[in-house]
């Protein structure tokens, strides 16, 4: 548990898509792919963000959703942000044949994990989805390490016209896979699990829940018997099977359950 907050200077700002930006910064504590940090925009909120770069400089890749994440888009190099962490668990990087399925900003956490797995000798296929071509994240970055990168857009501007989940069955059908890694909307991840289970390929999901303490204390991120901040964010799909909230509900800041 590294709970000391460090104020870091943003060293680089990389626009990734019209709604997504990567911020790089030096932050000493070592991290493994899958872990996240709490990122504080002074004067604004502090949000959990997966490390999209776990080396030096570290990085987070933020998609504008609500007000705070939108404010992050305009952060310039030189700006000070608060970082604590890294928190949570990480992906198993043993060399295997892995299908990586990313939806939206979910690709942010998958990219460094895929890179590390590739360095370890894994062979990878990536399937990335977004609403439209310009919102596709890290296609080139994944292209540098994956044997194949398939994309899907809701509006058909690139690749498959439709959900990225439509690609999962066909890809898994083409070859033996040892694992599927996925991060994105939970409804998407549930579909990935169904498709993979049909072919008996185990799935690992990176989950998101409202977070406050990131220390396994405040209960904000409760997900069934788990706390995403310490027991996750990376969960084998088996562990999610008996969690009725998965892909059905989440908790607001108040702890009130709302349907997804």
């Amino acid at each position: 548990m590294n709970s000391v907050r460090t104020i870091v200077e943003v060293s680089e700002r990389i626009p990734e898509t019209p709604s997504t930006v990567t911020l790089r910064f030096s932050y000493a504590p070592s991290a493994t792919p899958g872990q996240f940090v709490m990122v504080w925009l002074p004067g604004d909120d502090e949000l959990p963000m997966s490390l999209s770069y776990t080396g030096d400089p570290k990085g987070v890749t933020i998609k504008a959703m609500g007000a705070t994440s939108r404010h992050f888009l305009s952060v310039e190099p030189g700006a000070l942000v608060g970082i604590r962490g890294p928190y949570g668990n990480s992906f198993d990087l043993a060399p295997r044949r892995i299908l990586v399925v990313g939806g939206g900003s979910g690709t942010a956490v998958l990219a460094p994990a895929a890179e590390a797995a590739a360095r370890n000798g894994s062979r990878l296929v990536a399937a990335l989805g977004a609403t439209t071509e310009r919102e596709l994240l890290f296609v080139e970055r994944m292209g540098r390490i994956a044997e194949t990168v398939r994309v899907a857009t809701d509006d058909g501007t690139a690749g498959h016209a439709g959900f990225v989940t439509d690609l999962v069955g066909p890809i898994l059908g083409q070859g033996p896979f040892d694992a599927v890694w996925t991060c994105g909307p939970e409804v998407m991840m549930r579909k990935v699990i169904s498709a993979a289970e049909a072919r008996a390929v185990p799935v690992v999901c990176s989950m998101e829940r409202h977070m406050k303490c990131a220390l396994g204390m405040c209960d904000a991120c409760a997900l069934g018997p788990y706390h995403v901040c310490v027991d996750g964010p990376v969960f084998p799909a088996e562990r999610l099977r008996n969690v009725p909230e998965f892909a059905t509900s989440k908790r607001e800041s108040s702890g009130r359950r709302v349907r997804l």
Partner: protein
Amino acid sequence: MADLRVTVAGLSLRNPLLLASGIWGESGASLRGAFEAGAGGVVTKSIGSEPRDGYPNPTIETYERWGMLNAMGLPNPGIDEYPREIAQALSAGAPVVGSIFGHDADEFARLAARIEATGVHAVELNLSCPHAEGVGSEVGQDPARVAEITRAVKAAVRVPVIAKITPNHADPASLAAAAESAGADAVSAINTVRGMAIDVRLRRPVLAHGTGGLSGPAIKPVGLACVWQAFERVKIPVIGVGGITSAEDVLEYVLAGARAVEVGTAVAFEGIGVFGRIAAELARRLDQLGVARLEELVGAAHGAAPPPRTPGGGQGYIPTSV
């Protein structure tokens, strides 16, 4: 093997370790998990009349392993939503204390009746959160209002009522006495100690709310003093809270007068396994000390002989009640 069971405010607990309010307290599965991890019972998150988001992040700041500052701002799903969470904890067989907060006696009484209806075994009144406007210690720092609220809640429910008092007061024991006079079945002491963190580079408070509440080992001496003084002042049982991370800490609170304790921040620093570990340690330590039943030790440090003499010279030392 020493007997760790305690009875406090009508609760029969297998061990004196309660999950403190605000920790693992929003979801029924977590309450249940804390009980299964070894807690003797659980106190829910403090629940209000409406869903409440609490303050934006940052809501916490930590100090190595000895302290934590928080200003969650009493986030809670509200009394309409929360009963389902309590049901889940009760179904696991956990003794459950429902914690509530409100702006006045009426609101407390209404909330108490609502939460009693869920089947909780006792109600804890949060009269002590130091960082929420119009509730918490703002209503709990005045003995008259503590008495008024306690009286109203007692009239509204049959389950035992525990008043949780603030250390941010010139005389916290007077708050315990006020609660007792109004019929409270127990007091718990303490909630967090008002504090603040400032970041030098940013030139601003770290917590979004500015001030917050200090918890963890740093406040154990403060909690012990409050429990000691409350024990001297009231006859109802006292529940000790603040900075407990070990069996030794539990015993210090028990000797100071606590019949049970609550554990909060240690869950962040160690994980929920802290309950099982402390319970096991406690049994071993009592065996070592040759104490058969934990309850024998409640308040046992009171009445220890004061230093018998005046050191040489001067106007001397006059022993006083501490």
